[in-house]
């Protein structure tokens, strides 16, 4: 049996939920594949994985996988995940969000989860658009592109999700694309294994809502664009900033070590039990 078939049997709710809901060629399915391969490599038990999502096309991922799965409210996935992780730190909690979900309505939870270094893995499916609701611009829609709420072209500057994550304090930040699907496996794997708040930004394509409005062609065309415009972190270092204009820098942007919230909280518990309350001091 091919490896992937084994993974399908092992991880997918394959007998009920497929074919899945996404449009033909949608990058979300590819990310789902990378996710299960990455999880498989980590060796974690299915019972110990909690997959949490927000609302959006990407938010439908949990339905398809045989973990503890949770589809929350729009933008709030990280808050639920924080509760899960702090309540039971044995669980490996992975959070999937769309760009709108994570950075528009959910932007605040994102930067705070990063700042606190909650031991979670955040995978952000950045397709530059609100896919689920039909193609409105998102905070990652580049300047000048079109969307159903930006028919005269978008005038807002885009957020760079990974860079925001770095500033907010994430200890692991990687960026990949769905085209570079194997890199994705490893980025996700590393983020999961990382102790602390790990972020993987995945450049995906929504050819149906975003591609169509911007005449970017089919899923294949948009994946070719990813292929042709990605540069690795190393390459990027050798390039001038003009050359980097419009390119996607892929690879690991940050990998550093900082104490996680849970460990710090263990110290709080110790101090609490020692009665070292300032209330009494």
């Amino acid at each position, binding site marked *: *049996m*091919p*490896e*992937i*078939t084994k993974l*399908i049997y092992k991880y*997918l709710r*394959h007998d009920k939920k*497929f*074919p*899945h809901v*996404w*449009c*033909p*060629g*949608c*990058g*979300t*399915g*590819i990310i*789902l*594949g*990378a996710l299960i*391969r990455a999880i498989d*490599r980590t060796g974690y038990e299915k019972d110990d994985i909690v997959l949490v999502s927000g609302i959006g096309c990407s938010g439908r991922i949990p339905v398809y996988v045989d973990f503890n799965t949770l589809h929350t409210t729009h933008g709030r996935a990280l808050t639920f995940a924080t509760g899960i992780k702090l309540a039971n730190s044995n669980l490996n909690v992975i959070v999937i969000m769309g760009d709108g979900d994570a950075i528009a309505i959910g932007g605040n939870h994102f930067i705070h989860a990063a700042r606190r270094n909650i031991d979670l893995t955040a995978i952000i499916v950045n397709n530059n658009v609100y896919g689920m609701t039909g193609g409105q611009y998102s905070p990652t829609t580049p300047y000048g592109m079109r969307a159903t709420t930006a028919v005269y072209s978008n005038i807002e500057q885009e957020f760079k999700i990974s*860079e925001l994550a*770095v*500033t907010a304090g994430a200890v692991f930040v*990687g960026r990949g694309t*769905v*085209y*570079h*699907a*194997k*890199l994705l*496996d*490893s*980025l996700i*794997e*590393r983020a999961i294994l990382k102790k602390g708040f790990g972020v993987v930004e995945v450049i995906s394509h929504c050819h149906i809502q975003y591609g169509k409005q911007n005449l970017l062609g*089919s*899923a*294949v065309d948009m*994946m*070719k664009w990813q*292929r042709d415009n*990605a540069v*690795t*972190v*190393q*390459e990027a*270092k050798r390039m001038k900033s003009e050359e980097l204009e419009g390119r996607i820098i*892929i*690879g*690991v*942007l*940050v*990998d*550093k070590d900082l104490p996680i919230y849970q460990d710090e909280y263990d110290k709080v518990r110790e101090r609490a039990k020692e009665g070292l309350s300032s209330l009494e001091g």
Partner: protein
Amino acid sequence: MKAEKVSQAPEGASEIAPDKQPKPKRAAVTKIDIFKAWCKACGICVAFCPKGVLAIDEEGYPFVEDLDSCTGCGWCEIRCPDFAITVESRRKRRRVERKDEKEAPQGIPDAGE
């Protein structure tokens, strides 16, 4: 961004260059299954097969046209958004190679064409 200070190279980054593997000498080292009930005819597998193994039928679905050329690289499989195509390598050696990948998974692998 202080990217320089904290960032780390994905190893094997140079592999982003096109596939340099020689065409396999023996025929049909792999077995390719296309599960039509899940396939949505997006064409991704066909477009990105580095060996031109796959082609599109008149309804837009992929089919195996040139199995002999297949290197079992698995790119069609992992880029399929619908888990509708699977590749089984019949050569033990390749399996092992892919196992190796598992041990050192950080590289940006062969990016196909």
